[in-house]
């Protein structure tokens, strides 16, 4: 069989050429079939929540959530309209007694670190955001526990245990991220404890944007005092 001239396409609808066996041509259909399966999976993941979608989602979740993660709300339906921030305090002791530092923003410190090189921001800001989300989620969980308690539900130990586990995880994460920063502060004494809390500050409503009054911040979650973790991985070498 002679090779066809470059750029010459066979006419549509003609019978297969002598050299192109039926099986070979059929094998060309394999990639489009796989593609169709991927299209169906993508549509299932992105479909609005419904009983049918929930059922179908179970079948595709192992692949979809691992390698084809779809989350395209991108600042919708509600654009972010508040500033969430994690603050920290350090307790240390020396010959003159026990001291506590003024609250400082961990989130802003991490965002500042991310923006050290303007054209190539690194991912440290994402870590600050993650901690904010983690601490913020405790507030919602606490509200759920309070709600269950108010309704005098006989079993609110489940949500309460979840809250305790989440709170411990948040303390561990915050201690691991915060301790290296505390090391860099070179405080005049031995660090004993750390404290972190999450504040919520709404953005001024659009109509009030020129008003001189700033919106007030609210402490959403207070992790309280927890252990300092010496020897944690520094932010940078």
């Amino acid at each position, binding site marked *: 069989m002679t090779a066809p001239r470059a750029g010459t396409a066979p006419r549509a609808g003609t019978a297969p050429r002598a050299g192109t066996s039926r099986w070979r041509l059929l094998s060309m259909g394999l990639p489009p079939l796989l593609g169709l399966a991927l299209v169906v999976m993508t549509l299932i993941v992105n479909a609005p929540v419904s009983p049918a979608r929930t059922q179908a989602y179970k079948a595709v979740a192992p692949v979809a959530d691992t390698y084809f993660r779809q989350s395209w709300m991108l600042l919708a339906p509600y654009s972010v309209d508040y500033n969430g921030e994690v603050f920290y305090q350090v307790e240390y002791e020396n010959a003159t007694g026990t001291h506590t530092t003024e609250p400082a923003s961990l989130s802003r410190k991490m965002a500042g670190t991310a923006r050290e090189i303007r054209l190539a921001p690194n991912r440290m800001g994402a*870590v600050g955001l993650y901690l904010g989300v983690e601490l913020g989620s405790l507030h919602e969980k606490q509200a759920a526990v309070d709600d269950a308690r108010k309704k005098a539900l006989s079993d609110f130990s489940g949500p309460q245990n979840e809250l305790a586990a989440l709170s411990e995880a948040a303390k561990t994460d915050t201690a691991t991220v915060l301790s290296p920063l505390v090391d860099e502060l070179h405080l005049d004494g031995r660090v004993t404890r750390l404290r972190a809390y999450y504040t919520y500050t709404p953005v001024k409503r659009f109509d009030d944007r020129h008003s001189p009054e700033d919106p007030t911040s609210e402490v959403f979650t207070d992790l309280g005092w927890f252990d300092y973790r010496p020897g944690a*991985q520094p932010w940078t070498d």
Partner: protein
Amino acid sequence: MDRLKNSAASALRGVSSHPKYLVGLSLCRILLGLSTTLYYVSNIPYRDFLWGPHSYSGFEAFKALTGDQHIFSLYALSDGRTWFNLVYFVGLAVSLAWTVLGSRSLTVVHVVFMTSIYHRNYTMWEGGDALTGIVLILMMGTTANAHFSPLAKRVRARLERRAGEPHLRTSLHNTAAVLIVFQACVVYAVSALWKVAAPQWQEGTALYYISHVWQYTYSSAFPQLMDSLVLTAIVTYFTIVVQLLAVPAALTSRRWFREAVVLGIAAMHIGIMAGMGLMTFGLAMMAIDAVIVRDADYEALLRRVRLLRERVAARRGDRKAAAEEPAAEELSAA
């Protein structure tokens, strides 16, 4: 029955005879490669903290996660620092090599390294990472170095040789390219539909609120500009409109419409990069936008640029000749 068979054969030939989206995929490779290389380079000083064996995102939990969910990651193979650094810097070198050369084998290796690093620490995931992960997997089936690569001539010659003849690789390439365009459509359609239903987007003030959240504000000019009622409304509605138009742009045969929409979307992403500092996200998004534009569109664009250049050169030549004329007359008079 015969008609059905013939039309199926014709469709299969159509999808497997001529590779499409070659320019768009090459541009996609460069933009995505820039994004992943930037991801590696910008985090070099912080790599141990973010992904290392003693990272804040614990190694034991990560190892358990890879086992439970059957996730593959090279970083899970050892908790040694040397292994971690080896995987990180080889990943960086692969990313750079893929951006420049873009061969299919390099694409596969790049996918392994990028999937590994994304799974090492899921707490930092953002939309751009998810999109890069998906598009890279799809790009394993494509020829992404037919242009803008030192290997481009050789690759095009190979493609020319098998053009017109059904080939499994061509079928794989075209399917993967269409899937990337489909993914782009899904991203923009889903995002736009969520926005259309949202009050702050409906009233045209969403961008004002985003610009006043300091974590999303990269330039001080961004919140100042968004304080203007007219500007914030224009930018908010523009965002929704260009995202809504992405699907018709990918399907239409009207070149001017597709080019205008893709240009609008690219402008939106440049704005996101400059105003919000989401560099890797912006580059990844622009990478898939580049695939929406077809080869014929790029060829027409190139023709227009050439024509424009020729016209400018001709005008310059005319001016030069006009300037030289009096001088020549003076010279001859002398």
